[in-house]
């Protein structure tokens, strides 16, 4: 589904990603872990098409297409979804209007008919239950006045409505208490299907107790330095990122 080859990217002249290689297949959940500043959010942003990042080398194929050549809206229409680390407040635009515009833009791209008001409402009511969101959130401006946890739940709610092929959750666990974390994780797990995939970007292992990954990657200084099964997350939690850093340094010296 997603193939990243030797991806290099810069932000304001600083090279943040220094050769990422990653393959994600349909049906898989990948976790990308790493210390602050390792490039986790940059990777998520580059995949979603954030303008501040410039790709200097490498390639990304998504469902056989050149992802980096696409505008952000086309990436979304092709089935990519980024759950923002800091969901953006949009005063004056109500949540359900936004979702409807978004869903219909995606459906149109896929050659489906736009949903009418009744079908749309039926769909979103059903999906709200996944993240236990109150209906009052539909008519409120997008994220405005939402608590940190409500914003994150709203992201997963959007994801549930848009049904992406590949979802990237960027630090969705940050700022969540344990109850909200469980709700968000349950939502993500319910949406798992053999034909979609998820990349969970996180600093802490905690979320991975609830969203169990097939593969865990450790990102340090813009490179994936270690990949393994779900037990790698636990090992990291126990031994800290310095352990991988040291290992990495040793490996580099040895190599």
């Amino acid at each position, binding site marked *: 589904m997603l193939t990243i080859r030797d991806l290099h990217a810069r932000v304001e002249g600083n090279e943040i990603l220094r050769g990422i290689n990653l393959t994600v297949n349909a049906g898989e959940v990948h976790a990308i872990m790493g210390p602050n500043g390792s490039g986790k959010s940059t990777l998520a942003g580059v995949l*979603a*098409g*954030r*303008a501040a990042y410039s790709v200097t080398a490498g390639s990304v194929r998504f469902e056989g297409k050149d992802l980096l050549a696409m*505008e*952000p*809206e086309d*990436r*979304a*229409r092709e089935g990519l*979804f*980024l759950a*923002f680390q800091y*969901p*953006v407040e*949009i*005063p*004056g*635009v109500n949540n359900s209007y*936004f979702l409807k*515009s*978004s*869903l219909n*833009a*995606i459906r149109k*791209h896929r050659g489906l008919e736009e949903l009418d008001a009744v079908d749309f409402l039926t769909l979103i009511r059903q999906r709200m239950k996944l993240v236990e969101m109150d209906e009052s959130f539909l008519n409120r*401006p997008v994220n405005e006045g939402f608590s940190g946890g409500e914003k994150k739940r709203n992201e997963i709610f*959007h994801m549930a409505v*848009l049904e992406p092929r590949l979802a990237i959750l960027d630090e969705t666990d940050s700022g969540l208490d344990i109850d909200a974390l469980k709700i968000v994780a349950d939502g993500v797990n319910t949406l798992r299907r053999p034909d979609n995939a998820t990349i969970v970007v996180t600093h802490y292992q905690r979320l991975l107790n609830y969203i169990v990954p097939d593969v865990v990657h450790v990102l340090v200084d813009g490179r994936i330095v270690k990949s393994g099964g779900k037990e790698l997350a636990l090992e990291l939690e126990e031994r800290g990122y310095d352990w991988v850093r040291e290992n990495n340094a040793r490996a580099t010296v040895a190599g």
Partner: protein
Amino acid sequence: MPSEQQPMITWYEEQFGAFEKSLNGGRTSEIHALRRKGIAAFAALGFPTPRQEEWRFTNIAPITKTAFQPSRQSADLSIVEDRIRPLLLAGAWHLVFVNGQFAPSVSHLAGLPAGVMVSALSEALQKHPNEILPALGAVVRSDENAFTALNTAFLQEGAFIAVRDGMDVERPIQVLFAAHSPGGPTLIQPRNIVIGGARSRFTIVEQYVGVSEHPYLTNAVTEISLGARAVLEHDRVQEESLEAYHVDSLQVHLRRDCRYTSTAVSLGGAIARSTIGTVLDDEGIECTLNGLLLATGTQLLDSHTAIDHARPNCASHELYKSILDGQSHGVFNGKIFVRKDAQKTDAKQTNKTLLLSDDAVIDTKPQLEIFADDVKCTHGATVGQLDDEQIFYLRSRGIAEADARDILTYAFASDVIGRIAVEGVRTRLEPVIHARLSRARTTEHARVHQS
């Protein structure tokens, strides 16, 4: 008065002479004495120039250099009636003027409740001269500036609305001024009088619409006075032709425990200058002024507001927003006076501008003059562009960039639009605003491609 204006002053004096002749017997009336004062004041003042502080940012040379012909009775209204009917609000009383002349065929006033008078000013003057004459010029000084003076000189027609004490008028009163002047630059000068009795409650929609793209000048004066505990919701929509000029002056006099709300949306006109003055002349008054300016191309839209807190314990809230695209120019000037007497005043003014292009310009000037010491007065002005992070957020959910910009621009205006009292006005404006924004974008696009 600058000497280069002399030919234009003479032009309007000549027009006044012709107007006088057409009046026949009306020349000796009391109202005509007022008109004569008007033309004299106009000749003495001359049109304002950018050298005057009040007009510093607003160059009205195209207005002062055009010889506008005062509008006369138009014979055939049938062409414009088809354009007017879709503009009439469902469930409202309709008082319609075409080129300043009362248009009975598209007005609907039959069945007005007793105690509610809605009519053409000329008709009201004929029927109740003694009641109405003192109201003319009671709130607006005819020598305030050249425009109010000129309006007074040709004073003849406009909207007259009077609501008796205690009357609650359920249906909104829509006053629609349609302009259609294919025959050359026309001068349209409505004079509107609104009198709300004590404890009266009513809603007015005041609307200026150009039904064809021709140059003309609307120069309107509106005088409103409200009695104690009256409540007036006043929606105002300015959609003049983009070839036209629009100047209006609204003066509002408020008494004890009144509630007055004006929500003004200004979209039209090559140059449009709107002046609002409110006097809070007793205690317990709440005055709210909302405004939205939406300018594209080379439009110049100007809003001057003044809120005069003359007495204690009153509140005023003001929210004005501008969206400027192309090479348009917006002007906001918000005066708030708090007199020495006006303790416990609570005044809040907010002015926000969204610039959609690098060539658009806003001049914004809050002007607070406070002479009382126990008051709460705040003001804030912001000028900004669309937020890149918001645009990216929308795009990352599949929304095209142009649509994202459109959604966010409309969202910027939405709180002012949300304050429009009459739902029918709101729902009609929504597509009009969207169309204006996307039209601006298309034009901008064409311009870029040409160059």
